[in-house]
Structure formats: C-alpha cells, structure tokens
C-alpha cells in the first residue's frame, strides 16, 4: 500500500523535475544581457565573444540547447560558474551544508517551541502561554526576516556583545572534519565541546530569526487544530469516562490535531529556504542563498539557476516524504 504510493509519487517527481528544468531553462534564456560578453569581459573583441558563444553552444537551436541542459542536469552538471570558474555543482556541494545546518536548526526550533506553545495556548486559553502564542503567531508573519535579523544583530552583537555577528565559525578556527558536514554535529562527534559551543553560538541568531516565521505558522496551526479537536464528542467521551486531562490531551486530541500541522510543515520547508536566502546575507552565512545572490550580482546565471534547481529539488523531495508520512500517520487516507 505505502509502497504503491511511494512509486506513484516518484513518477510524479520525475514529471515535476522535468517541469523545474523547463522553468529554469526558460528563465536563463530570458536574460536580456549577452552571457558570452559577460564571460569574455568588457574589453574582449567580437571574435572572442563569438568563439565563446560557439564553445558554450549558444548558437545551437533552442531544442538542442535544452537537450544538452537536461543531459547535464541528470548527472548534476549545471555548467560552469562564470564567477568562481568552477563547476556550479562543486560550488553547491561546498555551500549546501551550511544552508542545511541553518534550515534544519530553524525547523527544529520552530517545531520544538511551536508545538508545545500551540498545545498549551489551546488547552489553557487566556493564560500566559496563550498570550505569548497569539503574539508570536501574529507578529511572526508580519516581520520581514531580514529586518529582524539586522535588529537581532544590533542588539545581541553590537549592543550586548553576547553573540557573534555572522559566519559559521571565526575565520581563524579550523572547521571540524567532514563527517556530516554540519559543524555542530561534527564537533560533537569529535568530542570537541569548545568547538561545538563556538559553532553553536554562531548558529543561534540566524536560526532563531529564520525559525520565527515558521514558529508562527506552526503555533497557529497546532492551536487551531487543538481547539477544534478538543470540542469534539470523542474528547468529551474520553473526559466523561474519567481519563486524566493530560491523557485526553496527549493521547486523544493531539494525534488528530497534528495532521494539518504536518501539511504546513512540508510547506514551511519552502518558506524557510526562501527566508534563508535573506538571513544568510545578513549573517554572512556561507550557504546557498548567499551564493545565489552573489551570483546575481555577478551575472552568474549558471550559479543562480543551479541553486534554484537544487533548492526546488530538495523542496519537492521533502514534500514527497510529507505526503508519504501523511498516509503513515493517518490510515484513513489513501491516494487512490
């Protein structure tokens, strides 16, 4: 049953990836500027530019170019970055772990804080938790993340001096080895508490800022889900037969309230990736978002489209996993 769903979704995934490549390919052909001229530099002669056009296959028919492009994508070849002069896929390999560490930390934070906050504010209306919960869910979606990031930087770095202003580690510190490529996890695995603490401190501000928007959504979903479930008959029955309130909340209500939350969680990944672009810039976080924006400023379209495609790919896969989880969690659902 689950196997069949996974296979179905995988077929769909192939289709979506095809679509993604079509979108990014069309975009890179929308560019009004002359990419060959950009590669050659402003002083290059016309012959050099023509040679580059030939070399990069820019004179081929569009269909041929697209086929070439697709053949590249299948083996994770996004062409050469015109700014770093390296394959874009190498750049992505270098910058991806930073983004993964940041987004995972943010999502973790959003879930770990948002779920209890949502539950408590539903179970205890008008308590301090409810007030905090509602405040978070109202402000979280209204504040621009890059502004919040700069504000945090101002208070916690410039004013209070508690936390570093950016980067994953200070420049003179050697990063831990390449076990998982996540600095906090790697330093723990190596048993280097000092290094863990340093990288952890660098992670705090960016991940808190990034988590805030998702925290708002999760708190709100859990809260409204719980409120709806708690007013239902079977919860009253559970209470009537004398179950303790904690059992009613956790065993009876929570499970059903979590379903809609799971859905938004998949979508949050998209929100977090988008927010990461902005947050990475503010905190000089050496991740994909900053790489893409640097690519934009240097007209490095291979880098921009490669990064876009990779992020979309991760997003699609995550949502596939969420869809499958949905079936696992709720046996009433099928994708028949």
């Amino acid at each position, binding site marked *: 049953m689950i196997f069949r769903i996974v296979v179905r979704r995988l077929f769909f995934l192939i289709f*979506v990836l095809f679509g993604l490549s079509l979108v990014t390919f069309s975009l890179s052909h*929308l560019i009004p500027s002359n990419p060959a001229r950009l590669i050659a530099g402003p002083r290059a002669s016309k012959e050099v530019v023509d040679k580059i056009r030939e070399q990069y296959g820019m004179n081929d028919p569009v269909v041929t170019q697209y086929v070439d492009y697709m053949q590249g994508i299948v083996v994770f070849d996004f062409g050469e970055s015109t700014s770093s002069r390296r394959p874009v896929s190498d750049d992505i390999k270098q910058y991806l772990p930073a983004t993964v560490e940041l987004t995972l930390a943010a999502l973790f934070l959003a879930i770990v804080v948002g779920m209890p906050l949502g539950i408590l504010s539903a179970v205890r209306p008008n308590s301090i938790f409810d007030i905090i919960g509602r405040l978070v869910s*109202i402000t979280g979606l209204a504040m*621009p993340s890059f*502004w919040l990031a700069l504000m945090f930087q101002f208070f916690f770095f410039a004013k209070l001096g508690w936390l570093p202003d950016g980067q994953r580690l200070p420049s003179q510190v050697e990063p831990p080895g390449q076990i998982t490529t996540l600095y906090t996890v790697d330093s723990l695995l190596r048993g280097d508490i000092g290094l863990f603490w340093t990288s952890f401190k660098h992670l705090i501000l960016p991940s808190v800022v990034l988590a805030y928007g998702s925290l708002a959504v999760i708190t709100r979903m859990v809260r409204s889900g719980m409120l709806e479930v708690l007013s239902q008959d079977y919860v009253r029955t559970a209470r009537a037969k004398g179950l303790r309130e904690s059992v009613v909340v956790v065993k009876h209500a929570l499970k059903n309230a979590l379903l809609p939350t799971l859905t938004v969680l998949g979508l949050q990944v998209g929100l977090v*990736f*988008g927010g990461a672009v*902005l947050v990475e810039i503010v905190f000089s976080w050496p991740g994909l978002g900053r790489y893409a924006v640097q690519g934009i400023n240097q007209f490095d379209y291979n880098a921009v489209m490669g990064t876009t495609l990779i992020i979309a790919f991760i997003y699609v896969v995550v949502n596939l996993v969420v869809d499958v989880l949905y079936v696992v969690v709720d046996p009433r*659902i099928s*994708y028949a």
Partner: protein
Amino acid sequence: MSIEDTHPTSVRTVPPRTAAVPAASERAATLLAEGRASRMADPTDWRSRIGRFNRRFFRGKPLNALGAFIIVLFFILTILGSNLARARGVEYDPTRPRCGESNSCISQKFEGPSWKHWFGTDDIGRDVFSRVISGAKYSLAIAAMILVIAVTVGTIVGAVAGYMGGAVDELLMRITDMFLAFPALVLAIAISASLGPSLRNAVIALSVVYWPWYARLVRAQVLSIKTREYVEAARAIGSSHNRVLLRHIMPNAVSVVIIQMTLDVGYAVLATAGLSFIGLGAQPPTPEWGRMITDARNFFRDAWWFITFPGLALTITVLGFNLVGDGLRDYLDPRTVRE
C-alpha cells in the same frame, strides 16, 4: 422566479473527512477553501448586512478593529504621504539630499530622532520620517499590481480547469504544479534576477509566483460548486457554459479569493521588500521600505533609527492586513460561528 432566488442563501458546507487527500500544496488551498458557506447575492437589504458585519467583525474583537485602523492609516499615507512630506519644506523632501547635490550640509546627516526630525536623518541628510511615509504608496501599488495580475491569471486558469475538467484540467494543473514546486521566494529571486533588477520586474516575478496559488484555490472552489443542484438546474434550463460559470459558479467562489487576497497583501509587501533588500526590486533613491533597510544596513550600528523605522512601518502594515484577513476568514467561515 429566477434561479438565484431559489438558492439557499447560506449552504453550510462542512465536507466530511474525505478518504482521498490531495497533494501537500493542494491541501493548503483546500484547508482554506473547505467549509465555507456558499454566498450568493443576498436579497436582504444592505443596511442590515453591514450592521451584521459590524457586529460580528468588530464587536469584542479588538484585533480586527486594530487591523482595520492600520489599513485605513496606510491608505491615507498612500494618498497623502509624499505630499505631506514635501509640504513641510525642502529639507523634508523624501528623495532629494537635504541641500541638493552639494555637500554643504553633510554635518546634518545621521541626526538622531528629534522634534525636528522625528525619525532622524539618513546618510545623506534626508528626513527618515518623510521617507517612511512616502514609502507607503510603493508598497500598496506593488502589492495591488501583483495581486491583480496573479488573481486574474489564477482565476481564469483555475476556473477553466475546474469547470472543463478532463485533459484541459490535467494540462493546466500540471503547469500550475511546475510553478508550485519551487519555494516562492526562491523562484521570485530567480525570475527577477533573469529579468534584471527593477521594481517592474520584481512585480512580474512575484505575479508569476503567486498566480498558481489562486489557480488551485479557484479550481477547488469551482469543483465543489459545480456539483450543486442549482448549477445543474441552470444547465437544465439551457444556460450556456459561460453563463453558468460566470453567473452561477464564480460569484460563490469570490469570497474565498477575497480573503486570500487580503492575507496575501502582507506577503506581497514582504516579498517585494525582500527582493529590494537583495537589490532586485526598488532602486535608489526610491523610498521603498525594503530598499531603505538595505541602504541603512551599513550604518545601523551608529544610526539605529535609520533602519528601525522602515522595518516597523513594514511590520505594522503587514500586521494590519493579516489581522483583517484573519478576521474576514473567521467572519466568512461557518465553522467558527458558534452562536
């Protein structure tokens, strides 16, 4: 007696927990869409409807009132903002440096908030308060344009797909899926990077990002409405497809779209500011709020006011639209009516 008169005015549609649940992105749309009363032209007179709206929307709901107040203020600033700023004199001009092109008054930059300059001055001596109130119109114009384009395209695609079904539906929705597979802001960045940095291109990029959400939303609405008996009845008495879609189905889908639009104004404002922050949206000296934050970035350790106020303006504006959007959703959602 026309078909409209025979409609139940408020059909409670709380769909049962269905066995088949659509894909993740679709579920978000249906979460918003499900369980909303079908709303047709109501024969009751307008005054009582407005009265009921006031009672249910404002009474005992200070947040809704706050949101409405913020939106009204925002609209006033949109219309009057830059004129108000200019009316205070040349030194309050939102775009020109304080003393023209010369640097004779360079000492007047980075003044802290004072009675003269409520929000202080920026790096070339411009009054930050003037710039902030002048910025309202950019946010509103941008958000309005984005939403008009996105809603128009999305509604047409969604309505056609939902009503026609079959291969057309399949084709249109697969195209929609292609766009929905990207995280919104990431796609917007890629598009506006390809088109080149300007406010116009940012608007195009964000419209491209937003229309698929409306297509999904409208399609889901049309799908659920078109099975109603009154639609069948309209077809039976010989109404054309156009008429059925425009006169009998779409009016019932409108409220959902309006709620979503109210909620999306905030997102559109934030996303535009985000693009401007990266350098892809508004270009200097436009006093767009996101752009102001970028410009202030390099100085904010010494001049906190320069960056704080545009951000606060953004936050408060988005907050206003979100509060009203939430309020409208509660107002129009029959599940929350427990009277």
